[in-house]
């Protein structure tokens, strides 16, 4: 039942796979700089994906791709890395699982996400199916990263990967979100990044700890 793919579909699939690859690789890295770079790369692939979808879809996607590049590739990594540097964070990330098994965890989450994606939309035709699957995969990978990692910064990056997944899902299912909404989302993400970094710096100053594990004692 191999159906012939048109050239644009091939590029979309390729970009989606590489997007997933960056997310997958990023989930295993334990240095702050690396995971920020993988996140930027991932957002870049996201922008490419949007551009390829714009070919046969809506023209607005070009603008949203541009927005992705400006905000997600340049602005947010800059914010996070400057705040990390200013609060002289150790940059060494801590996690519940050691690096090797974290890949294993990400692999399983990927598998589950694909399973979920498949069961959700068997009726869609190929490209949409792949896009929804990648969206779910990205969401679950981001979630897994947040669940597994102990330190704050990787939680932020996991959260943003999750957000990327949602962006893809929105683009795949809705075609194009109205521009105003798109801009709104970007601003919220940046503010989110700002807030989270301020929070991490504050926590570092108050409790001299980056590990969310110790936060358990903050009862009332």
């Amino acid at each position, binding site marked *: 039942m191999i159906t012939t793919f048109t050239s644009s579909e091939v590029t979309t699939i390729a970009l989606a796979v590489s997007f997933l690859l960056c997310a997958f690789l990023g989930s295993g890295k334990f240095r702050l700089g690396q995971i920020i770079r993988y996140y930027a790369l991932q957002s870049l692939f996201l922008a490419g994906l949007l551009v390829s979808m714009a070919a046969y879809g809506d023209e607005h996607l070009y603008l949203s791709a541009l927005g992705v590049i400006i905000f997600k590739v340049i602005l947010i990594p800059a914010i996070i890395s400057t705040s990390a540097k200013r609060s002289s964070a150790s940059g060494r990330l801590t996690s519940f699982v050691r690096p090797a098994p974290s890949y294993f965890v990400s692999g399983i989450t990927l598998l*589950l996400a694909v399973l979920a994606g498949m069961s*959700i939309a068997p009726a869609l035709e190929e490209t949409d199916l792949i896009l929804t699957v990648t969206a779910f995969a990205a969401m*679950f990978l981001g979630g*897994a990263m947040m669940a*597994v990692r*102990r330190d704050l910064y990787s939680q932020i990056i996991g959260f943003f990967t999750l957000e990327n997944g949602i962006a893809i899902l929105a683009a795949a299912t809705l075609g194009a979100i109205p521009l105003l909404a798109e801009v709104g989302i970007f601003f919220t993400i940046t503010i989110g990044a700002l807030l989270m970094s301020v929070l991490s710096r504050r926590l570092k100053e108050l409790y001299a700890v980056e590990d969310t*594990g110790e936060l*358990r004692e903050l009862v009332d």
Partner: protein
Amino acid sequence: MSLTTLAIALVISVVGTFAAGLVALWPDPRAHRASNIILAVSAAFGAVVGIYVATGSNVSLIVPEALYPVAADGSAHAWPMFYGMVFGLDRFSAIFFSILSVVTVLVAVYAIPYLEHYAASYNVRSVNALTALFIFGMQGVLLSTNIFGFMTFWEIISIASFFLVLADGTEASRKAGFLYLIITHIGAGAIMSGLFLLSGGALLSDFSVIALVTPELPEVTFSIALGLLLFGFGSKAGLVPFHVWLPEAHPQAPTHVSALMSGVMLKIAVYGFLRVLLFMLPGVPMWFVLTIVVLGVISAIVGVLYAVLERDIKRLLAYSSIENLGLIFTMIGVGLLAGQEGSVDLTQAALYAALFLAASHAIFKTGLFLSSGVIIAAVHSRRLEAMGGLAQRMPMFSVAVCVLALSAAAMPPFAPFMAEWTFLQAVVGALTEATPMLKVALVVILAAVGFVAGLALFAMVKMFAIAFLAKPRTDEAAAAVEPKPGFLIPIVVLAFISLILGLFSPLVLNKIGAVDLAPADLGTQVISTGGGGLAPLSLFLVIAGISLALFLLRRLLSDVKFERSYQTWDCGQPTTPRMEYTATAFSAPIRFFFRFFLRAQKVVTATPLTPNNPWVASRTMSLLVSQVWYDRLYAPIGSGVTRLAGLVGRLQNGSIQFYISLILLALLVTLIVAL
């Protein structure tokens, strides 16, 4: 009176009640008196309308369409903002509406001096407002003819009465209030889901529409709906397994509110139950009728047994309400059972007896609660053991309470006796040609009602005698004086109504539709059913004649002035009021005879003079009356729920990662399984 004037009067009564609530919130101290007066006046309007509609045979359904905005095409449709809901008063709900209005007039009059006397412990403005809202809710339930209206006003009743139970802010009332809130709201949920099951989920469907839909309902949903409705109305009316809140909540509310709750709110539950049973359901399966009868009999017996044991006057009245409600439900159950088994006149007699008992219970129970308020105000305690000697100090008040207590015990010249007589006579009359199964049921019910009537007399005599007779057991009781007219008039009027309702019961029964129960050809003087007849007025005249004859004979045969008052014969040793019989001692034989059911523990502690001197200085006896239903049924459920909550609590261990993984898991499960 034409329909429109009736409709206007009805609207005045409902709007007046609401206005009374608003006026009550006015910060001006005169607002307390004004709101109660407005409430009384509007309730009077309601009473006039209710009685006119209940007795008038021609008026079927007053829809105050005169006041609806007329639509463009001339067809009157209801107020748009009420989603086209129609409010109306038909003959059946008019009976309950007139009960509610009559009781409200008297309670409002009573509330004025009562709240002034208790201005310190109650927030007078909020209590007045909530009482008006409470009555408004009850009026609403009686007027509404669809599910949405019925349930909203039902909720208003529950919420208003919940806050009224909390009115005095003590710990006990808070505990009782929460228990009351939980049970009434589970009940309200059950009623709503039952009604939705019946009406197929249509929120605004009219009751008459539901009546058409129900016959085609599949058997399973029909019986589930019936079960839910029985639970809902049963918990509101205080049937046994769900009665636990009643003896806790009623005593905590301010007296005039607990009078309203016990007298009228329980009747609203009976109204709702009958409205569903008689007007909406085609026929009712046998198991349902038998459960009603069984629950009714059990709650009558449990209510009366605990009423005999109780030493707190308001709890005693609450348990006696449970007993009367149990009787009402037994009568309804027997009516339906007879309807199924084919003896027709027993059906009509039983149902009308239930209605009449409900009406007379509202009258005398409100009177008793109001009088318990007066006693507690005088004696500053609810315990019967702290009262005594009040009859000597408040003669007029004690005569009225004696009349109310005797009518509560279903004694001849008063209204409840007529209801019980009609029921028992119809049962005996139907015994001969009943089917074997009905015969067995009727014999058991005959024995149970007899048993309950006997113990009800015991409880009421105990309440009246220990509270009013003999010497006062405390100084407050000794200092008691005749209550102010504001307290006295409502109670005397209620006692008078109970007597008049009893004497003219054939007339009343004939007017509210029991035509062949009190046939007009006998000049509506006789209730005739099941082969027996009772003429209440001539019975009363015979008793009065005999007493008059005895009075004259005694004057004739002996010299009346040859009299001397002296202390009670005390075998030579001086006696103190503490030696009198207390409520605990008075009910000791019954407590001993039914010790298997009641499990009351008697603890007698002897305190020695000094630790090493065995000489007993004083001996105290305390009695722990265990609430069997509460300890055996509700306590285990309560502790089970709290243990479960403890387990769930352990999940919140504070680690963020744990929560995120839970969220992911949930997302995954929904994606794979649910969609």
